């Protein structure tokens, strides 16, 4: 079956603000906003992290082999 042809390489929604609007305009997402930490992969609530912060491929296999070891994923 032939694939449906796309006109844009990446489909995005309608923009809500002008790209050059200053970041403090209401409604613009802020990377620093509270709640973002919890939404990040591999960052644990107690301040530790797992290999999932560094890779999305078989992350659990890259975690420390001993639970007593610190989990130090690569940069």
């Amino acid at each position, binding site marked *: 079956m032939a694939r449906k042809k796309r006109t844009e390489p990446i489909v995005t929604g309608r923009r809500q603000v002008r790209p050059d609007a200053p970041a403090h305009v209401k409604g613009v997402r802020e990377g*620093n906003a509270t709640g973002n930490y919890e939404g990040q992969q591999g960052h644990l609530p107690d301040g530790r992290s797992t290999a999932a912060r560094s890779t999305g491929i078989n992350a659990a296999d890259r975690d420390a082999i001993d639970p007593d070891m610190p989990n130090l994923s690569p940069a």
Partner: protein
Amino acid sequence: MTARSVQAQETRELVEMSWDPITRIIGNLGIYTKIDFKNREVVECKSTSSLFRGYSVFMKGKDPRDSHFITSRICGICGDNHAVCSIYAQNMAYRIKPPPLADWIMNLGEAAEYMFDHTLFQDNLVFVDYCEQMVKETNPSLLRRAETTQAPRGDVHGYRTIADIMRAFNPFVGDMYREALQVSRVTREMCCLMEGRHVHPSTLYPGGVGTVATPQLFTDYLVRLIRVLDFVKKAVPMNDDVFDFFYEALPGYEEVGRRRVMLGCWGAFQDPAVVDYDYRHMDEWGRAMFVTPGIVLDGELRTTNLVDINLGIRILLGSSFYDDWVSEERFVERDPLGNPVDQRHPWNQTTLPKPQKRDLDGGNYSWVMSPRWFDDRTGDHLALDTGGGPLARLWTTALAGLVDTGPVRATGRSVEINLPKSAAFPEMRLEWQVPRWANTIERNRARMYFVAYAAAIAFHFVEQALTEVRAGRTKVFTDFDVPEEAIGCGFHEAVRGVLSHHMVIRDGKIANYHPYPPTPWNASPRDVYGTPGPYEDAVQGMHIFEENGPENFKGIDIMRTVRSFDPCLPCGVHMYLGDGKVLRQVHSPTLGMSAGG
């Protein structure tokens, strides 16, 4: 440019000499003096800056989260100090505390910055004034004596005579001059490891850092730090030998650049175990800093309380190209502790530039304002200086006696610095003693000791940071929301001294922002009460030791004094017009004035 004219005043014959711009500093500084060559004395001195920056004007209305990126651009050599100071102010305004590892990483980056900048300035710029070539031109008899004077610490640094040390500092060819360039490269790399980039950091933010803390990061830092130790262990005794020789060979040299001990230090290196960036506890976490904030007055510690320091800051006019802001808006009536905040405090300042022609005879002559510290015990507006940075930092830390880590210990009258073993030297203990004077030599001597201080304390920071990493606590950032209304202030030490950033946020935007770096304090002109600024004060009344007469006068003692403060008025041009002939005098007004100004 050196300019000169002769005038008879009262019974003394005064020669007007000026250096504008002064080279081998950062920025655009002019020193205008009247010299009595018969009595070998500088009778009057005025310091001017012909540069207007206007950060406080254009920061208004911007997103407060951008402020550390923007204010970093104030300086091309200590921009990261501005970024860090702005982040401290933002942390306070957003009411957040970064994770401990983030504070250790920032401390490590700043320690590297002090090592870099002090080394570059001391060995590549300041020591040109003390090198063999310069001393040969200004004080030939002193050089003859240096040739035959044994260096007391020669067994450590390997130079037999004082003249040998002076030769090592000759620009472009001297060993120390060239080694210092290498060291400043390595220390800059250390700063980049922690802050992403030098001199405008890319991984420092309010709430923490973007640096990914891995064991490799700290190992990379540590190997460089140990490499630098060899240089530090050699440089400190070399500096001591040269400066002690100046005191010994030129009796009275302690009076050069001497002024009343009025030093200010706003503290550096936060202790994450104590700091919460809350103004209400600023007294407590200020004192926990690894360089103690404080004001030293006539050799006594006046205060170490950052709240007192903050409330005492007054920005005066008197000889500056600005209109007064007394009738302008008052942004902060009271601080979060309920103390009243003065209209002349940076939180309430409104910058109203008024370009005009420079008038050195009783008029306005500088773009620099006159920051002063109001002493409520005496009612004086004190023209504090920073002693070039290190002198005030070491002096307050020594007297306060609060810092006590393994590598660094303040004793109440000195600072002990313990450096571990390195490739060429065994363990070494250095001790900086509180000097008898705040003068040119002591400002310069303290600088190299502070490089050692920063290197030693960096070992403590690496240890603490690695403890966090080994425990798996890798978090380096905390989330925050920008409040609609808030105030914040940051206190830090730029390399050359006190640095404060004051910010007011309204409607989520910057309503008022005032950075106060060290040079406005040091290079300030006469204020409204007629009090001269520190450069003026230090040079005025100074005895001249240079052997040259008026015809080929270099003003070396004046230059040594001004440079001892590590002036930084971004950014200047370098030129020298031979034997002091004025080729053409041009006054170029700025900021929309017509050309006739």
